[in-house]
């Protein structure tokens, strides 16, 4: 898929008419993600209950790729377990580095189309923004859980 096609077929729709761009009523966790050099700036808002992502949204501003990528990510991870979301995030980031398998990439559905961006170093940070922010949330969340369970021992 060439770049213009990628915009036309996927990015524009998610950028101009995002499903998940609004402030969540009662998120359990909110994290801000920023790309200083581009000015991309989003807040990722998730509701995590018993290890499940039951709802999620994002808000903020940035280029079409950062916005669309965050919106597509939320399509994928809402309703999934934290573990599954993390695994997807891992696949996505590896896809952008050009290190994921065909099969893994297919598992990302629509977001697979963003692999084009792996050839555009200046856009890599944009396409990663939502995913990296999600990854950080998961990491912190697990750290606090791990902490918790240790205390119980």
């Amino acid at each position, binding site marked *: 898929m*060439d*770049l*213009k096609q990628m*915009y*036309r077929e996927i990015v*524009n*729709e998610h*950028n*101009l008419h995002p499903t998940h761009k609004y402030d969540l009523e009662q998120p359990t966790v909110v994290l801000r993600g920023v790309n200083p*050099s*581009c*000015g991309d700036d989003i807040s990722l808002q998730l509701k995590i209950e018993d290890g499940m992502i039951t709802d999620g949204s994002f808000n903020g501003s*940035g*280029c*079409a*790729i950062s916005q669309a990528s965050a919106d597509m990510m939320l399509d994928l991870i809402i309703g999934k377990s934290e573990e599954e979301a993390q695994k997807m995030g891992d696949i996505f980031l590896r896809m952008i580095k050009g290190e994921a398998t065909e099969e893994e990439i297919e598992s990302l559905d629509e977001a697979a189309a963003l692999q084009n961006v792996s050839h*555009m170093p*200046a*856009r890599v940070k*944009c396409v990663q923004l939502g995913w990296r922010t999600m990854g950080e949330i998961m990491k912190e969340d697990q750290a606090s859980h791990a902490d918790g369970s240790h205390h119980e021992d």
Partner: protein
Amino acid sequence: MNEYKQDFPILRDPNYIYFDNAATTQRPRQVLDAVEHFYQTENANPLRGLYEWSVRATDAYEGAREKTAKFIGARKASEIVFTRNATESLNLVAYSWGRTFVREGDEIVVSVSEHHSNILPWQMVAKETGAKLVWLECEADGSYKMEEIENKITDRTRVVAIAEVSNVLGQPKPIREIAAAAHRHGAIIVVDGAQSAPHRRVDVTDMDADFFVFSGHKLLAPMGIGVLYGKAELLEAMPPFLTGGEMIEYVTREDATYAEVPHKFEAGTVNAAGAVGLAAAIDYVGQVGFDFISEQEEKLTALLMEELGKIPHITVYGSKDPADHCGIVTFNVDGCHPHDVASILDADHICIRAGHHCAQPLLQYMKVSATCRASMYFYNTEDEVYRFTASLAKVREELGYGS
């Protein structure tokens, strides 16, 4: 078709439109050949050699210094220090002159449209010495009023750090008048010529700059060679910056005495091949001539601004006068992030820059987080301008807007 384009191997592919010349220019065959010739016939470590190649390398290197001095109107070749780029030149001035001669309570006047390379070194000097940064504010079109200049430059001013031409708006500043104001108050003026030296005749003596810097790579020369001009008496009074080989006379275990200016400031093996490339670039620019360069840039800028005016949803920043742009046109497309605009244009093999252009304080002042910038040089053509604007006119549609 522009006759000069044929000299640039990379530009021979007519599919590409290179409009990022303010970031770096392309190099003509003549420059690449000069560097090859150096490596194939006289490559050696210059300055200390006692054999033919080293002697010739020394001649080539010092000849490049003479040529550079003439190019910018310096009185003596020894007022030219070779560096890596304009950024290093500015850091050299800040570290060596700034840390030595700026005192607590002094003011350093910096214009709001400076490139980061002429801001950060002065923030460092201010922090280390206790001096204060004072900002020259520009008008909406990016110009500076003499009134603002006269107000901000006072007896407390020790340094005025200012670009002759802004890399975002392309607008030249009245350096001679600003230098006079600085000197009236006993301050020195550090002129960032990164965007002026490639586009206009520079005469450091006439403008009375105390320091003047530029980069070779923005002037057809190879990457890795830059220039610092400094008035002889200032360079002589300054301590060295980088120290090591080639810049000393005596070294004992405890101390060292330094070579004469300009070698005092050129530590380690010099980039002789880079200097040779710069000399060839200066020759090439001399052959093209600044009359032609300005004429061509103005013609292309006028055409570009006219064509941009025909496309809806486009905002052009800076002066309305094409002569005030040095080939640089900065703009935005409503609702479209500059990075997306650049990516779409890239799909049509058009090279422009998008982002903050290393001038965040100016963009903060303009209240935009990023812009698109098309910057042209004498080898660009009207045909390229038409193809560029035709492509740009489709960007909003490509980004999903009902055009």
